[in-house]
């Protein structure tokens, strides 16, 4: 089972990313997924987690992931070294940051810039999802785009797909 934890602030769309990823694998690939937010009241600005579990067989364990294969962090103010201890062996942190990160566990990407360019606003959630997928191939590029179409209203979907495609172009070939 692959477990991905998205971390953002309320309103940044962490759960939307988690949901799109779940839809991509379970509707367009022959896999199973659960996507869920950290339970409780949502408050704008407060740190929020969202989880996606992916497997080749139905997932019966509904509990929150204790260890993750990947952390996708939408806001670098939420990064702490403690997160490294919650990674599975060979796990990675995908971090939205304007700084150059050199670490074997952390992949840095300036998603705000990309989002600004293609969406006209620094809404980094789909950009970061694209960074995750481009680096890990946990779902195919086509199926990710289909899931964006499935989840988002048409106008938003079009813009987000352009954003995602461009990130793929930029990252293609990057190995982890």
């Amino acid at each position, binding site marked *: 089972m692959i477990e991905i934890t998205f971390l953002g602030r309320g309103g940044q769309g962490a759960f939307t990313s988690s*949901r799109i990823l*779940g*839809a991509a694998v*379970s*509707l367009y690939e022959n896999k*199973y*997924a*659960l*996507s*869920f*937010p950290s*339970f*409780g*009241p949502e408050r704008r600005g407060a740190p929020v987690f969202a989880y996606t579990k992916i497997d080749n067989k139905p*997932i*019966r*364990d*509904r*509990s*929150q992931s*204790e260890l993750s294969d990947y952390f996708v962090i939408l806001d670098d103010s939420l990064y702490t070294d403690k997160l490294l201890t919650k990674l599975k062996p060979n796990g990675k942190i995908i971090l939205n940051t304007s700084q150059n990160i050199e670490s074997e566990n952390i992949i840095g990407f300036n998603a705000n810039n990309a989002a600004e360019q293609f969406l006209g606003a620094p809404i980094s959630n789909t950009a970061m999802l694209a960074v995750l997928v481009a680096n890990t191939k946990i779902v195919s590029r086509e199926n990710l785009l289909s899931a964006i179409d*499935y*989840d988002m209203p048409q106008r938003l979907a079009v813009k987000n797909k352009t954003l995602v495609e461009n990130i793929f172009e930029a990252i293609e070939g990057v190995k982890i």
Partner: protein
Amino acid sequence: MGNKVFVSGDEAVALAVKLAKPKVIAAYPITPQTIVVERLAEMVEKRELDAQYMYVESEHSALAAVMGASVLGARTFTATSSQGLLYMAEVMHYASGGRVPLVMMNANRALALPWSIFGDQRDSLSLLDSGWIQAYVEDAQESLDMIIQAYAIAENNKVLTPVMINLDGFVLTHTFEAIEVPTEEQVSRFLPEFNLEGKMDLNNPKNLFFSSSPADNIKFKFQQQQAIEDAKEIIAELDKQYKEITGRGYGGLAVGYKTEDADTIIITLGSITGLVKDVVDSLRNEGLKVGVVKIRFMRPFPDKEILELCKNAKKVGVLEKDISFGYHGTVYTNVADALKSAGIELVNYIAGLGGKNISFNDIENIFRELISIDSGRKVQTLNFVGVTD
């Protein structure tokens, strides 16, 4: 073939309700039920669902409103959770005594105090005696399928008893997963139009929900008991029909997983069942003969089914998100009665109260503790899981 979608448990319920085509929906918002009624309101707004959506001032009013609507001949829907369910408690007895075929979704959530929005099952289990049929579901697919089945059960002329479908709060209501949505055509083949024989009628007026003398009252209550007993067979029969049409069936009031040769069984209710199955598979790899019994209906209670499923078991643990303070969990006391003649070591595990996570390890420990009874270990009847960690 139906349509595959990626939705939360709450959304699955809303999709099911839409397919059942209720005419009147009344609800009051409460976390974690709200998404259901938000989706339904959107469907009404988009004219995908031809229903009157009533915003009401309380859960008490929500249930009273759908009762009134139902006895005039409209199929209805309402949903609630936790404190809201308790606020409805009075009307719930009215509805079951009045034999009003309502369908309600309840998002299982802890009861205050301490105040908590997280999931456990003390809300619905504390209303086990309200005369409603109570079902508990495991995942989003079963949520959708059981809402549709619930209408057929409640409205069956022999049953005429309201049905409550329980979904574990957040763990099920807010978790997204892929499900198959049946077609309108499939649902209309399964679910007849709403037709309440005794409904109010301008040409044939009725006096409903009357009082009765002590001499008569017990006769009405006996009728109620018979109806809910009769429902056992009807529930199983309807599930078969549903399977013939949609390809999905759940197998009656209680179902077993790897119970045939199991000497140690955990009995569960609701969405925790899946994780217990994972643990069973893992322990089976060690050669341990373990299994799960999932109770799908708490009322009518599947006593015979549980006895049959546990027939080879020596140790049974009842794992539940409930406690009846001063005694055991309510699921346990019901199971204990069903198994009273079976000579089984029966142990009650109270877990997950107030949304406390129940982990793989917790369940594995329970199995190992139950198994250790064989080697002479004494285990207390009542155990709280996760108090000391």
